[in-house]
């Protein structure tokens, strides 16, 4: 896994762990049962095996099995819906808004600069510890905006904005990759991102040439 650099990613990884821990006994049970069957009830020797005792129904088994899978499913659903609620709870009062624009085959990022100016960058710079809201769009075909280290992914569609938010919580560099097939150079539609301290971020933002 890429190193986690946001709360969203942290929750995503935690959810994977919870699901793995819940699913492992089921998988282990099925494998154990299958191996047990092969070991004990494989017919040995030549010739046609005789008929085995016919068991057509067992209400107890069916009900137990079904109830178990219902309980497991409901548990995973409650966990998943809870995590989803955390992920999609409204943005904080003062988020950083970054407009993300995809086009064949580059990403660009627009920020509100000082004094009402606009700043554009080909690398994605984010401050640590502040919520960031991505407004994502495309100039041509559909792209997929994905930050593997932060567990956020949303399509970039032409003519409309999609939105996703997260809070970076670790300094360092990260990747931006395209997850929607977008033509010839899809595999090369990658760029770098950097999480800076809030003061370094402000310094960077102020140093950018303003665009009208």
């Amino acid at each position, binding site marked *: *896994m*890429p190193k986690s650099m946001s709360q*969203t*990613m942290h*929750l995503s990884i935690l*959810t*994977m762990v919870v*699901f793995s821990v819940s*699913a492992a006994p089921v*998988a282990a049970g*099925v*494998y154990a*049962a299958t191996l047990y*069957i*092969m070991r004990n*009830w494989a*017919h040995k020797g030549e010739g046609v*095996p*005789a*008929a*085995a*005792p*016919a*068991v*057509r*129904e*067992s209400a107890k*088994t*069916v009900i137990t*099995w*079904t109830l178990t899978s*219902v309980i*497991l*499913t409901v548990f*995973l659903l409650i966990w*998943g*819906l809870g995590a*989803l609620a955390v*992920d*999609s709870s409204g943005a904080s009062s003062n988020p950083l808004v970054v407009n993300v624009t995809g086009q064949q085959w580059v990403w660009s990022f627009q920020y509100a600069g000082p004094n009402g100016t606009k700043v554009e960058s080909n690398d994605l710079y984010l401050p640590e510890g502040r919520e960031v809201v991505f407004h*994502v769009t495309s100039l*041509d*075909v*559909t792209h997929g905006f994905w930050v593997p280290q932060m*567990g*956020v*992914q*949303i399509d970039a*569609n032409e003519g*409309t904005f*999609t939105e996703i938010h997260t809070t970076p919580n670790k300094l360092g560099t990260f990747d931006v*990759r*395209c*997850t929607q*097939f977008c*033509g*010839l150079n*899809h*595999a090369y539609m*990658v760029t770098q991102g950097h999480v800076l301290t809030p003061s370094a971020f402000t310094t960077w933002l102020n140093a950018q040439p303003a665009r009208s």
Partner: protein
Amino acid sequence: MTTTLEHKAPVIKHEGGGLARHQNFLTAMIGGVAGAFIAWAISHHLLDGNVRTTGDAVAVLTGLGWIVGFWFGIGALNAPFAWLIGKDQNRQDQLYYAGEDQGTKRYWKYCTDHKVVGVQYIVMTMVLLGAGGILAMAIRTELIVPGNHFVNQQVYNGFIAVHGMLMILALIVAVAGPWGNFVVPIMCGAKDMAFPRLNALSLWTLVGAAGLLLTTLAVGSLTMGWVVLAPITDQAGVGMDFFALSILVFTVSTTVAGVNTICTVFTMRTKGMTLERLPIMVWGAIIAAALGLYAFPYFSLVEALQILDRTASTSFFVGTGGGTGWLQANLFWLMGHPEVYVILIPAVAALFEIAAVMARKPVFSYRTAVAGMTGLAGLSILVWAHHMFTTGWAPTLGGPFMVTTELISIPTGLFFLVLIGTLWRGNIWMKLPTVWMFGFIANFIIAGITGIYLSDIPIDNQLHGTMFVTAHFHYVFVGSVLFGAIAALAFWYPKVTGRFLDEKLGRISFWLSFIGVQVTFLAMFVSGLRGMPRRYSSYSFIFEHTNFISTMGAYMIMAGMLVLGGAVIYCWNHGEPSGSNPWHANSLEWLVSTPPPLENFDVLPVITEDPYNFEKEMVLS
């Protein structure tokens, strides 16, 4: 095939068949090419070359010309035209169409015998899997090291789309085609399908559609993944038109086949064959057919609207004209998710059948098996938007679709219950079909569990669009469905050929494929978890090792499939003779001779119990 049909009652020889005596696959190809040429010449001549959409319109009309010419050439339209001019077919004509006394020639013709159609589907499935497999190997070879070395990106991008679509088509027909046609009517105690001519139509329409799909490789330009969604389709050339048309035609084939299967089971069962005495395979066939009848019209609609957008300047899916790509994505996945179960359910039903016969026990909890398949089919129509969790379309529907999707694990769990319950305390005959069935169980649990991860939005936001998804659905389609299909092939092969599929070669193939699947797709899960997106023609060095491992595994699968393909061809004439009932089973297809005679039964049997009592061996009286 060297065996010949035997008849108890002498039939007076008669010159039936008329025009059909001169029609076969070759004339169909000639007709198709001629039709395409005529359509191209006319449309090219009449349409205004200065209009933007003309190139696409000419391509679509040319493709249509191919299909219509192909239908004429193979003889699909003989009977309807004869009927129009007042000349209905007589008994001799029908027997000719059923391939009477034509030996192996009938396999190249518009043959109405459901068993011939079944064999044609076996061949067709193998051809499609072979073509898709070659592309898979090309893709994995390109990905063996970072960078673009082996094929250029444009070609590579075309490969991933056509590989995907070919494999989807192959798997839709892999079990339902061969065995839904060959054994299901006999299982019901029917002399043929309800609509024998439509049966032949479904097969030959598939052949025509596949031909059209393969031409997209030659004309290029299909470079957008197998889902082929707007707006990137706008940038594609005429390959896109052929593709859309071939899918439209393919849905005609599945619709015709689905109606036929359902009508056969509901109207042609022999006396005493109540719904609860049906072999479980028959339930799988009709549930999948019914689900297909619900799902595939969306596919037709997507492609028809797409063709209109391209050729007639409509804008159903074009944003600038008031349409939206999200509409197309919704329609596509309304088909796309049920389609997975159209593929899966027949394979699972075949495995229930195999488990019962090989464990010498009845299917455990027959009604649970039926309920599980029905429940899965029902739920599958309510989950489509989980393919769109990360598109940004209707975020508020994320929760509800997460719920329906995770509920899928309950009917899927019932499949394991029925399989394990059937095998439990059995007396298990470890033959080739059994071996592949155990492979299915091992792979399907991984397929199922990784599916639950992806159904969960916080996880999907990370893993969607990555190789994790690719690995997941390859565990479904290769590890599960293909293994089930091969189990079914090994199980019913003796009924078709009178010979066993070689046990030794089959096991070599099994181990190569089984280990190959784990190596390829477990490594691919890791690629995805590490952050590698899908449909990449090249990748960063951090994904180097897992991609190399995946490619090695893929070569193992290829080796396994080549051994299997070789065994299927070799054993057809040279395998160990099996007799007519090698598994000592009691369902009707095993009680008729091998190969089954034309029209299957001299006297229709009367059924008094289900076929799962292995205490006694049934015979047809």
